[in-house]
């Protein structure tokens, strides 16, 4: 479903990604972890073309992201993305946040879009919040709305970039629960996170990145029980003791 092949990216002189490769098959959940600045966000943003890259290829559902002829907005409308800082639109109500792109991009009628939004708000447990504005919700609630907003587009895959790292500890689980449910429903997911509990529960594979490189890409058991590289071992010991 998502195929990343030898992708390299430079910001000016600085090489942020070095020949990164990874595969996410349909229905798989792949977790990306690694130290700060290792290129996780950059890589995941390359997948839906929010960042460009200079070398390599990325294919999403058989479509090349880097191909100039690719209709990027159309591709993006089929891939959901959830951000660290939620990025709900603060000037729109919760309901409008979820209906905006449905109407403007997919051309759904207002009625269809509202139906879909209500259904998804129920799924994430926030049905009563729909007339409120983002700033009136807690961080955990905002992130669940953001997930609903992405799901409203009926995506074929979902990208998450540290969806819980901006949250107060007591709100992390309400978001992870939604993500676990989504994973169990068969959604294809590529998730940047340091929540190893989540990884252990639902991930198929773990990718470990360091300094712009994919250092390990292995099934979760072998990754946790027996990391191959020193770098991964050090990283794991740091985050697991915390």
């Amino acid at each position, binding site marked *: 479903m998502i195929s990343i092949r030898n992708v390299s990216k430079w910001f000016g002189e600085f090489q942020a990604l070095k020949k990164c490769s990874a595969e996410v098959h349909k229905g798989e959940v792949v977790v990306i972890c690694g130290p700060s600045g290792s290129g996780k966000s950059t890589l995941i*943003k390359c997948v*839906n073309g*929010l960042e460009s890259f200079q070398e390599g290829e990325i294919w999403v559902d058989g479509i090349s992201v880097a191909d100039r002829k690719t209709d990027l*907005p*159309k591709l*993006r*409308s*089929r*891939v*959901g*993305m959830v*951000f660290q*800082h939620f*990025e*709900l*639109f*603060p*000037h729109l109500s919760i309901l409008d946040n979820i209906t*905006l*792109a449905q109407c*403007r*991009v*997919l051309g759904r009628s207002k009625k269809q879009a509202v139906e879909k939004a209500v259904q998804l708000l129920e799924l994430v447990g926030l049905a009563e919040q729909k007339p*409120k*504005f983002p*700033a*009136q919700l807690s961080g955990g609630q905002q992130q669940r709305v953001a997930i609903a*907003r*992405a799901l409203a*587009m009926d995506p074929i895959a979902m990208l998450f970039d540290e969806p819980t790292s901006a949250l107060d500890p007591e709100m992390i689980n309400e978001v992870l629960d939604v993500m676990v449910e989504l994973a169990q429903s068969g959604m294809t997911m590529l998730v940047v996170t340091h929540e190893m509990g989540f990884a252990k529960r639902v991930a198929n594979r773990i990718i470990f990145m360091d300094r712009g490189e994919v250092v390990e890409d292995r099934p979760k058991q072998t990754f946790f029980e027996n990391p191959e590289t020193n770098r991964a071992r050090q990283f794991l010991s740091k985050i697991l003791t915390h």
Partner: protein
Amino acid sequence: MAFDWSSIPGSLPILWQGMIVTLQIALVGALVGILLGTLLALLRLSPSRLLSWLSAAYVTVFRSIPLVMVLFWFHLILIPLVVGLLFPGKRLELGFITALTAFSLFEASYYAEIIRAGILSVTKGQFNAGLALGMNRRQVMRLVILPQALRRMIPLLLTQAIILFQDSTLVYVINLDDFFRKAYNVGNTVGTLNEMILFAGAVYLVICTLASGCVRQLHRKLTVPAREIA
């Protein structure tokens, strides 16, 4: 020095005519200025080097020339030239049109900078969120970024409109009868010039102070933390 205010009540209807001209200039200048300013800000931030440069050049030129000269320039050269081309041989009363055009185009350069700052104050994350939902750049700008940018800039946009309201007195150099020039003329004719100019000044003072007070109130409202509105 003794003041004689007795001519003021009788001349209020005439002064009011002038005030309507003043308000029209300020209102049109602000509205067209904001619309054109938004367009200029968007061009300035567009990926096209050429468009961005053109917009920057426009803004720099208008912000570097004194408004009085812009008015003269429009009055003596530009407007007669354009109207002469469009309606050859006709003699039209052009003062009002000249003022509206000059103020709109001049103010646009100031509004452009305010709105550009507003757009830049909306984070990249909001832009990415819009793109990630499949909207194109134009949709993201129109539906996500601009509404936030303009809302944030409302106090500054209004403050600029108050300045414009005061600057509109400059139309006396192109012989247009706005509020100030009507007051001046009445005072000159009746022989109470000092009183009339004092009175006109007081009217500007009251209107602008009240308007600034409203803007300050609005600013306070807009910056209340949203959680409290709940």
